């Protein structure tokens, strides 16, 4: 029992309700009108990422919120802040990496993607931010097949 119990750092986290699916508007169905990439679209990309230790999504754990997503379609920049559930969460880097990878796979090349921890919510905030901002370290992390496996699991649609 102790083995499995020890795996969870925070066994009873706060959970939040999921936002409803985005409604499809008539403008979106119109062939000719362009739809700019907006905050909600980015949020929809990352909200369903699985938490590495709970069977819950990042949205349900409030790790990501729409207000902490900023996108500028014209200037091709995206900034996402995420909030670990506890300040000593050892999964913070992994969560950040998952968000980053999801955005890299889902957004056009032109975007500059910035993923960082919500200021003041994690003990080793700077170190994690630095890792996530360093392109080469991200690339190197993804060369590690064990790390890639965990990231892929966070990004796959859970079928259990």
């Amino acid at each position, binding site marked *: *029992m102790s*083995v*499995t*119990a020890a795996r*969870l750092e925070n*066994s*009873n*986290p*706060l*959970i*939040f*309700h999921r936002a409803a699916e985005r409604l*499809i508007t008539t403008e*979106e*169905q119109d*062939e000719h009108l*362009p*739809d700019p*990439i907006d905050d909600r*679209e980015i949020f*929809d*990309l990352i909200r369903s990422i699985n938490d590495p230790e*709970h*069977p*819950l999504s990042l949205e349900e754990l409030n790790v990501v919120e729409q207000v902490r997503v900023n996108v500028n379609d014209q200037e091709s920049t995206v900034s996402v802040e995420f909030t670990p559930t506890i300040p000593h969460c050892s999964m913070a880097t992994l969560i950040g990496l998952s968000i980053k990878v*999801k955005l890299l*796979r*889902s*957004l*056009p*090349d*032109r975007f500059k993607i910035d993923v960082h921890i919500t200021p003041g919510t994690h003990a080793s905030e700077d170190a994690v931010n630095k890792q996530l901002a360093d392109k080469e370290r991200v690339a190197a992390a993804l060369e590690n*097949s*064990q790390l*890639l*496996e*965990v*990231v*892929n*699991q966070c*990004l*796959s649609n*859970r079928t*259990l």
Partner: protein
Amino acid sequence: MAAESARLPGLVEEFVAGEVDSKAADVTEGVKAGNFTILELVEALGLSLTSSQPQTRGRGVQLLSQVLQECYSGLSEKEVEVLIAFYENRLKDHYAITPHVLRGLKALVKSTALPPGSAVSILKSLFQDIHVQSLMVAQRSCVYNMLISLMESREGELKGLGPDFVYGFVQAVDGERDPRNLLLAFQIARNIIHRGYDLSQFTEELFEVMSCYFPIDFTPPPNNPHGIAEEDLILALRAVLTGTPRFAEFLLPLIIEKLDSDVQNAKVDSLQTLAACGPVYGHRELADFLPGLWSSIRREVFQTASERVESAGLAALTSLSACLSRSVLTSDSEDPLQVFLELVLKDCKHHLCEPDLKLVWPSAKLLQAACGASYRSSLLITATVLPALLDEYSSRAQCAQRRTLLEVLHGFVQPTPSSLSAEGEESVLLPFQKSLCSAVFSALSESSAGLQITAIKVLITLGEQPGLLSESEVETAVDHLTKLILEEDDAQVSLAVAECAGSLSRLHPSSFTSRLIPRLKDEIFSEPMVLRDDSAPSKTRQRCVSALASVSTLPGLVQETAPVLLQVLSSAQRGSNSFSLEEVTSVCHSLQRIANRAQGAEEIGKFFHDVIIPQLLGLALQAALQSQRSSDLSSALTQETVLSALVPVISSVCAALQTDLAAQTAAQFVSLFLDGETSFLPENTYPSQIQLLKSEFESWSQSQLVCLLMACVCSFPHNVEIPEIDRLLGQLEDLSCTSTHPFSYTSAAKCFAGLINKRAAGQALDAALEKTLKRIRETLDCESSAQRVQAFTLLVWVAKALLLRYHPLSTALSDKIFSLLRDPELGSRAADSLSLLMSDSSDVLNRSCHADVRIMYRQRFFTENSDKLVQGFNSAEQEKKSVYLKALSHIVNNLPRQVQLTELPPLLPLLLEALLCPDDAVQLSVLSCLQPVLQDPPPALSSQLEALFSRLLSLTSSSAMNVRIAALRCIHALSRLPEHTVLPFRARVLRVLASPLDDKKRLVRKEAVSARGEWFLLGSPGGR
């Protein structure tokens, strides 16, 4: 005879010394035919059975056993006795002979002449002289089969062996590894347990020898040659382990231990095994282990990420609680159920008061699982949990928290079949009825949609249980619902309100007639003139209209609601502009929902027949006449959309009418349309010269009413006679061929087809058809005719009517349609008409209006015509080819999936060709039929992958958004193909899909993101 028996020594000699195996069959034949007896065979074998060479003895025994296998039934008791004594003795013989000995014994124990006592002696020698586990698989199986036969036939003798039998079995089976043999061994063990064999001191031994396989982990060899699945072994073993309460003291610790395993399947198996113990055990067996079991179950449900583990854990808890609920209470001991549930409550209840935290859900599920086990446990749990939840609910102010609490509450107010109160017991919820209702009502007045929806769900559940809502509470509930209908425009809330209103109205109709219906009626007719531009009042009206349909669950209610709806139509007809076209259409849809209830409620059908339909028809007729008199065409009831919405109202009523009423309705409709007979209509102020089916004067507002005629006459069951059918058909044909108003001529053609489809086969039908087809052909062949489109429309509908009933003429008609694919004017229409032929039509010629529809007509059409289509494609000139591809895609698209899978492979090249066709509609149609096929692709696809990928990838930059979306979905589906077949395309797909990520349309980007995400996972660790 003598000559025959003289052959025997020769045969034996050849088998034993000559090693000619086939001679055994000859000997068997001889014995069966009565040419020689077993005794003669034994005599002939004589020397070989006693030979000093094990080899020779082996052959001798082998021959004897082989013959016995076929001929054991003819033996006398004396013979069996002698043979058994011989075989028992041979068990001690050389190991090479044992297999043959066992086969012989196996045959002998099946004999009905088995002498008393021999079963015991066989088993004794077997257990003494043979070490089963050192035998080969087949011989071990032989031993188990022998035990099974003896258990069937000689149960008494075997039981006389006492525990020795169990001990012998335990020894024999210890170490068995073959799945086939294990299934036999599990069967024997189950028999031992269920048939009351004496286990005594060997209980633990038997358990040990069986439980060492638990939990089963078995992967069948490739192709599974023995047809044994892991599940078979699991279930067989579970039946043994949970077969007797005497195993409890060994099994329960084992389950607790295995639940600690990290293997998910082991956890699930353990929990399911535990659940299977519940019905067999009593509380005494469980008593000592309850704390341990509970903490394991709790841990699994609290921590798991897997729904399987969770539901197995919950089922185990329910089973344990149900088992404890069966215990008989005595005055001097404490109630074991109560003790256990207190344990559960202690660990879970406090989590319910933390509605923001994750554990509130698993805790609620655990408590609900325990609660649903029995009436007694639901009494104990609700007594503690409901007050706490209700307190917590009233002390929390946030909607999200209240919603969670109410959602949890909902789980507790839903009774399960086993927790239902029996007769004489009152509902466990009765003490909390007042506070539950006030919690629900307070939630309904909150502004959060989620909270409202949850409250409505609770209300439905309470309403369904008799006695939980008092009259005044029902009234309050109805008032709340009314308010929500009038004020709340959230779609999900409206849906929930409709469901709740429907459910409550069935049980408490009076509150609805007195409160809700009048209030909605007022709202519908209140004049929102000032606010015309705003869409809000219109939406409120539509919600009211739709709510009226939702509450029309009983005939009494229908008599209140339907007239209100009719009143709307009537004021719309009078030209008062207060109702928009949209509103009028939604009234028609509501009427249709009510009309659908006529099926199974005769009274509703009669009410529609007597009141609603004549009024509807009258209104439509007035509108038509009015619009003809003045050029003011504003009346909504002349609009095509409104009339089309009225069609299903009439059609579903007519389909459900009793025969006599149906015949009456048919006569009324026909005489109105043929002779202008209006006496059955209300407010009879119609001119006498009405000719609705004549189109000479371009009076399309009248001729289009033919759609209502179609709704009526084409929907009756077969036994309803349509009067004057030939005259009717003639006029319909005229109208459909000569009218210039598309809605009129199409409706006339459909009506014609609907009648033809049901008309009895015979001369009358053939004559009518011949006449019509001649006219169609002549018009079509005359290329200058202005009425070719009309003739073609009639052709298609008649072709459909005949195709559905497998009429011999249908082939000629479909050939005609195919030939028109080349027609410069009608070619494209002809291609589109195939979609009409192959799909279900919503208003006519479908099963709900009793049309004659043979099963598999689509397959039949496809098999008969696909070749013609392919040939036509090959011989057509380049610019006509797309018409054929379009036709093909329509046909394939409508085929059932199973048929698509088998028929598609030969057509794949053609479909891939069709993807290159510049017509968006063709591309879309092909993509939409490819996508489901790609979920489970036919093997033929693998050779076409290269072509498929390049077509699909290039379509992702099509100019039509729907094509881009469909292509991306197909590419997504392709990622599910076997990895080795699609991995080579991964890099290319990822590269090409980078550009639709920047598509200007969000819907396209969404598909691109999910497709590309899946392709990234393909072949990547942790992916798929």
